[in-house]
């Protein structure tokens, strides 16, 4: 029996992370930007679980739980902000907010 190499799990995480990044940079819609962030967090989670599985230790999975908590917090606040922004501007275009230009 040959087990799945750890590298394959990590590569899966890396691919998901890169795809999330691509989505983040590509999309102008704030909703899709939040979705992309979720994908990136998920990719990082895959890498943690793979590492935890490689050593047979619970630590990787514990850290995935923390990521889960952070993702939940981030998405709730992010979506609340998104709603408020939409109410004011009637758009979700990220390019329309440039008030912090230096």
């Amino acid at each position, binding site marked *: 029996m040959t087990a799945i190499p750890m590298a394959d799990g990590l590569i899966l995480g890396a691919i998901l992370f890169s795809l999330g*990044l691509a989505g*983040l*940079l590509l999309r*102008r819609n704030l909703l899709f*930007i939040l979705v992309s962030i979720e994908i990136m967090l998920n990719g990082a989670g895959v890498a943690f679980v793979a590492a935890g599985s490689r050593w047979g230790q619970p630590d990787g999975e514990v850290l995935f739980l923390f990521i889960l908590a952070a993702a939940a917090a981030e998405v709730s606040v992010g979506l609340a902000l998104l709603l408020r922004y939409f109410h004011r501007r009637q758009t979700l275009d*990220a*390019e329309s*907010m*440039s*008030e*912090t*230009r*230096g």
Partner: protein
Amino acid sequence: MLRLLWLVPALPFASSLVLALVRLPRRAVAWIATSSIAASTIISLLVAGSFLSTPPAAFAYTEALWRWFDAGSLHPEIALYLDPLSLIMMVVVAFVSFLIHLYSTEFMSGDDGYNRFFAYMNLFVASMLTLVLADNLLLLYLGWEGVGLCSYLLIGFWYRDSDNGRAGRKAFIVTRVGDTALMIGLFLLFHRLGTLNIQELMRRASEQWPIGSSAALAAALLLLGGAIGKSAQLPLQTWLPDAMAGPTPVSALIHAATMVTAGVYLIARTHVLYALAPQAQFAVAVIGAATLLMAGFSALTQHDLKRVLAYSTISQIGYMFLALGVGAWPAAIFHFMTHAFFKALLFLGAGIVIKSLNDEHDIFRMGGLRKHLPVAFWTFLIAGCSLAGLPLITAGAFSKDWILWGAYGAANGSTGLWVAALTGVLLTSLYTFRMIFLVFFGEQHSQVTYRPGNAMLIPCLVLAFLSIVGGYMKAPFASFLGTSLPWNSKVGAIPIGETASGGIAAAVFFLGVYLAYVLFLRKPNLTMAVASSRAGRVLHSLWSSDWAMDWLYDRLFVRPLVWLANSGKSDLIDGFYSGVAWLNKTAWRGASRTQSGRLRWYAAGIAAGSIVLIAVVLFL
């Protein structure tokens, strides 16, 4: 009583500090400023009384306050020196300052900078008294620069008009030329004689330097440079007419009565040095004679009342220099005193006229004010007669006749100088009565909108009184001042007597009055015809522009310097520094462009940064 001497400069200084640092209501400002000078005047009069009743040994009193600093062999003291010369200067300065402060309380009453004005004025009085009472040349120089600073500040007092600021800078820079010469003179004296204490300096100079030695000549000429800068003599006189941009009381106090005579005082104070350098003393006489003539001609063509008076001041100080140059030392100081009275009065009268006519300066737009401003008219007339030298009555006649006589009969006197001084008398009476006729007689051109109050009239009346009786003090004055500043008599026969000289001057004075009457009151058309002829036009433009000196200096110094500065603006070193500035600016612009405010741009920045960092970890 003499021990109170230190209070004389200290009181104005203290009140200047108070006025500068504390915000006070106007009445309080006026009270503090005027009463401090009044106290200073009273103390100086008490000191003078004590000095006269019980003269100290050798007619000199030194009050050492403390040692200023120690630097090598230089130990200047803060010490005050009182002898007949400095006593007279002190009393006149303090008294005239008091009257002008009183006048200013009303004259400046509508001005925003009331506080500032009196702070400057008090500082000026303190500096002037320090200058006059200084025991050593370094302290004198402190006062010298103090009065220069106050002069600058007060000329540019109405700084919102950039012309006034320019006039202030001009005065400061032109006098700086003279001050630099004075400073080099101080260095030379200290280097050669090892002290700056004036009495010690004079003693050592006469011991170590023979008459006509080059060191004495150089020192005397350098001090003379300082004196002509401060006293607006040829060739550094160009700043004084422009200095009239300041408020009128400032012109009266600083640019007529006191500060501009500091050069006269300096030369009189160091007269021993000039006795050792006859060429330098002759130069003083020639400068004085040339200045009094040139300024007299210029005064004839001015339209601005205050500029007429400014040229008149230059001319009168020319008389003082002439007197110093020929060795008629007491005559110079006596003329300083009478000049302080009548010229201050003339300026105060001019201030009343200008304020009454709502800031009108042009004498051709005045006229007929005799009936509307009677007090101003009579006091102005008295002062004008004193300036022009109405014989036997006015103070100015006594002092001027004395100088005239000195130009002939003092040690270095000569016929040429006497004739120059006599021509000056004609010019003086001509321009003085031109001014009086145009302002107070003839038709009225402008409406009187302001009547002067008591605070402005009382100083005028007091000064008018002094402008008359001041002349009768000549005999006691001469004997008192003679103890410290003797008259150098000519050796040998003198072809003309003092009475005869005075008689000729009187005749010339009346000739001038008559000419002025004809030219400016009776037949103004004749004057116009003369002025519009070809030669008349050339002379008029030459005289009214002060013999084109400003033009000459502009071409000679200002433009080459500006050209040099401009051509050096982009050399290698400047290029380097502006390159640094350019680099910073470019970097700033580049960095601020990354702050675009766009969310995805920042995210891309983070991603690119992490890619680069991982690459660095992997491949380096």
